[in-house]
């Protein structure tokens, strides 16, 4: 059951890795997120060096997102125009993120920054989603069929360079999608995530895209970002383990398909409530690790000054 990972230089039980891919893939298919925010901490917990975990998780996200995106594509639920605009911002963001990582490594504060970013992002987004989905559920229960609230888009409507996004039935400025794409690209390089848990809420709450196209569009965006970051990680850090990636991917794609089916049976509000709880749980776990006294206050890494 053991298999040797050539880049991580260690052997792992491949059944456990496939099961891990399956479980995380299921969640990503269900919620339309990549699942990197779960996979990276889980791999580190399983003993994989964190640089390899961050870089290799990206392949898993590419695959499970691909499989989820195709399912959404058949439903014609992807806004490629929006993906394209966000991707343009994403490339710039990724390059910027890789540069930031190099800077933080030199300071020796990489781990802390990553952990703090995780806690902050997961905490904020989880809380926002939880509140929103609970309100929506309550409204549904009390029988008030709230037609889409006409929200005051204010400053977003006032921005220039407007563009028509037909699939999303939106006519808005390209600046917000560009900025969101940039931010997610940078975070993807720093945290080893696809950024679904940021893109999805951003699309829903900032861009006000219809929920129908959010899943598919965010998946396309995630595929593009993770593909680029994988190549960058392979060339700059030599940290992508293709054997580990293969195992995760095999579990991930099957899990993603099952997840898409399971997700179709749940209502949007329930899905968002569940995702919010998962996000908050991971965030709380990471925060706990930051404040609890480590088993050994010294840590060792094989690298020069």
């Amino acid at each position, binding site marked *: 059951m053991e298999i040797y990972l050539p880049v991580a230089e260690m052997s792992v039980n491949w059944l456990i890795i496939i099961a891990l891919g399956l479980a995380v893939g299921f969640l990503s298919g269900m919620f339309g997120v990549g699942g990197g925010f779960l996979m990276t901490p889980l791999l580190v917990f399983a003993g994989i060096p964190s640089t390899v975990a961050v870089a290799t998780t990206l392949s898993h996200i590419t695959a499970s997102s691909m499989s989820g995106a195709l399912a959404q594509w058949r439903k014609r639920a992807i806004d490629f125009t929006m993906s394209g605009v966000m991707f343009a911002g994403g490339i710039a963001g990724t390059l910027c993120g890789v540069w930031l990582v190099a800077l933080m490594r030199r300071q020796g504060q990489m781990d802390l920054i990553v952990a703090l970013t995780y806690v902050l992002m997961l905490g904020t987004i989880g809380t926002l989603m939880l509140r929103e989905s609970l309100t929506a559920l309550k409204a549904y229960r009390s029988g008030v069929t709230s037609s889409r609230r006409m929200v005051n888009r204010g400053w977003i409507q006032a921005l220039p360079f407007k563009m028509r996004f037909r699939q999303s039935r939106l006519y808005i400025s390209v600046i917000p999608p560009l900025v969101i794409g940039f931010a997610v690209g940078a975070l993807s390089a720093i945290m080893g995530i696809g950024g679904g848990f940021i893109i999805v809420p951003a699309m829903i709450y900032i861009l006000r895209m219809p929920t129908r196209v959010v899943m598919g569009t965010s998946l396309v965006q995630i595929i593009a970002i993770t593909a680029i970051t*994988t190549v960058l990680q392979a*060339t700059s850090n030599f940290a992508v383990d293709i054997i580990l990636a*293969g195992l995760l991917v095999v579990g991930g794609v*099957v899990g993603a398909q099952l997840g898409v089916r399971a997700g179709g049976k749940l209502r949007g509000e329930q899905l968002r409530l569940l995702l919010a709880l998962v996000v908050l749980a991971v965030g709380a776990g990471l925060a706990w690790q930051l404040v609890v006294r480590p088993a050994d*206050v010294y840590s060792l890494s094989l690298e020069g000054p």
Partner: protein
Amino acid sequence: MKRALLALLLLISLPAHAEDLVSGISQDIIQITSSYTGTQIVVFGAIERAQTAQGRDVVVVVRGPDEPMTVRRRDRVVGVWVNRDAAHFEGLPTYYYLAATQPVSRIAPRDTLARYGIGLQQLQPSAIGSHHDPEPFRQAVIRHLQRLGLYAESPGSIDFYSETLFSTRVPVPAGVTRGQYNVEVYLFRDGQMVSAQSTPLFVDASGLERRLFNLAQNAPFSYGLACVLMAVLLGWISSVLFQRAT
């Protein structure tokens, strides 16, 4: 006068009668394949012109390739554990295993052990960067690698089959670094080293693992691209298969 003459005589005659050592290892290359989960090598040897076993000790040291290491210490800052202090070491091995007939502190005086780098506590970095008090950091390296099974000291683990024939098993765990290792066998007589032998041991990947590792190092762009393609293809295939199934 008579005693001095006797001592001189003994000194002259010593080389002819001194104990000597021959040793070997069960394999001189460890191949890392896809099913590699760690292995064992056997180091064996014989003592020539053996004298009494009393006061005689054998020490086997296997030392892996050196790597630069950075150790960081976390401290609590506003409730959060943060890396505050760091020390850099050069010239510490990534693997160190010692087997001996008894604890090394009883075999020879400390300065003799230090000269030959025998014992985990005698492992000294060749260069230390950026810290005024590196000792706790050096201890942390030893502790950390001991936890991973990469550093170990195992006194009393040398088996004697006769007065002169001995062997010991050296565990090589899955997490070892690739490169050249050195197997050193020392013979001590009353705290003095009388003979030593060194044999190289190579740890290297073979087959598919080797090709993948080389590709990742030499052609990282194609390697990264291959990873992406694999992911995209598997995602696509699974999607098609599942659509057929329903």
